[in-house]
């Protein structure tokens, strides 16, 4: 099916869109550089885990990412860019295999119509070699970019296996933020949650509180992340945190079972729990309307 961008914008008004950001509005801000910029949307794909095999969990492990690529290509309006929030590949202990998987991932996503692609690693991509292989394929693991008045910050909280952002990157973040007006719309991409979602399952960033502290003075900050393979929304102060579904296997809700294992494939509901999201940025209002899609592109 084709998805009309306007359709899911309409849905925002009747509550089918999962989340409309509670960020503060920018109406009170005079003379802002972004006031005249256009609204836009981007797509977030996460946790594609290319290279994973496990028929009980996903018998279509070789086809799921391809279906998602086709579904994104089938959107009537194409996003301004696509962000991959880590775990592009499934972990392998072999450096050569890691590169083979990164190559395989890159081969599949080259079919995306949109060529403005942004990447960041997950611990599966970068946790064993401090991001060395990832950088060979996709460049830096942390960076910023600006798009239509929104300042995007990509934070790496996986290349250090201790699940930290690290002092060096925190200093870099602090220096970057000091250049921003307090009301600048800021979107942060991370792989792991910055807040303590469920530390027993490694669903946290050990020094994430320091990053949040740096971001807290800014009134329009939203974080999009992956890692937990399910939709999740959380608020720390004025900062919204939104986890995306994965594209290989879903994981149970935080703390809902004693041991975290992938949720088995349901033959009656194939691809259940998998999907991607679009994020509509209403820059003037500093709001983000999120729509969730199944692997095949059906709006959920």
């Amino acid at each position, binding site marked *: 099916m084709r998805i009309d961008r306007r359709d899911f914008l309409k849905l925002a008004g009747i509550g089918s869109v999962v989340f409309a950001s509670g960020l503060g509005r920018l109406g009170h801000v005079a003379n802002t550089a972004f006031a005249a910029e256009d609204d836009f949307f981007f797509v977030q794909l996460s946790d594609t885990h290319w290279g994973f095999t496990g028929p009980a969990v996903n018998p279509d492990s070789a086809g799921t990412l391809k279906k998602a690529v086709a579904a994104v290509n089938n959107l009537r309006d194409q996003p301004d860019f696509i962000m991959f929030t880590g775990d592009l590949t499934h972990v392998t202990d072999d450096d050569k295999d890691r590169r083979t998987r990164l190559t395989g991932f890159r081969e599949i996503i080259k079919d995306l119509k949109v060529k403005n692609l942004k990447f960041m690693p997950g611990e599966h991509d970068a946790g*064993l070699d401090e991001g060395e292989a990832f950088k060979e394929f996709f460049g830096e693991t942390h960076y910023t970019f600006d798009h239509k008045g929104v300042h995007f910050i990509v934070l790496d909280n996986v290349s250090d*296996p201790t699940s930290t952002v690290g002092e060096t990157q925190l200093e870099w973040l602090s220096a970057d933020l000091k250049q921003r007006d307090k009301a600048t719309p800021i979107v942060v991409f991370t792989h792991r949650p910055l807040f303590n979602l469920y*530390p027993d399952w*490694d669903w946290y960033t050990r020094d994430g509180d320091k990053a949040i502290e740096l971001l807290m003075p800014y009134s329009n900050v939203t974080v999009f992340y992956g890692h937990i393979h399910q939709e999740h929304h959380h608020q720390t102060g004025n900062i919204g945190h939104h986890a995306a579904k994965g594209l290989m296997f879903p994981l149970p809700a935080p703390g809902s079972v*004693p041991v975290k294992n992938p949720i088995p494939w349901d033959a009656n509901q194939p691809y259940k729990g998998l999907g991607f999201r679009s994020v509509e940025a209403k820059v003037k209002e500093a709001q983000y309307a999120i729509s969730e899609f199944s692997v095949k592109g059906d709006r959920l």
Partner: protein
Amino acid sequence: MKGLKSRLLIHGIMVAFITIVICGHLIAAENEQVIQITAKRFEYTPKEITLKKGVPVVLEFTSLDRLHGFDCPGLKLRLDIRPGKVNTLRFTPDKAGTFPFHCDNFCGSGHEGMRGTIIVTE
């Protein structure tokens, strides 16, 4: 003469203090249970550790390959296990029960399964 007495008194107090500290440590060390644990991808050996409530314990971790972690949320214990050294964790369990622990420094394909249990008996 008065100054000499003062110095002797101070000296005596210091000796007594040091003696108490050393004896205290020796008594504590005598009572401490020392458990050596190796960590390697993707297992702890032993992976089940039995302790007694109220008895001080020292966990001595050695990594046989790379950085691992030890996180036992139920007892509020965590430690980085770095290779090339003995990584020590000293505590006294204050409650009985079964407390799972796991590696919380990503270590590879079997990381999720690198787990163990501490059992604290009454």
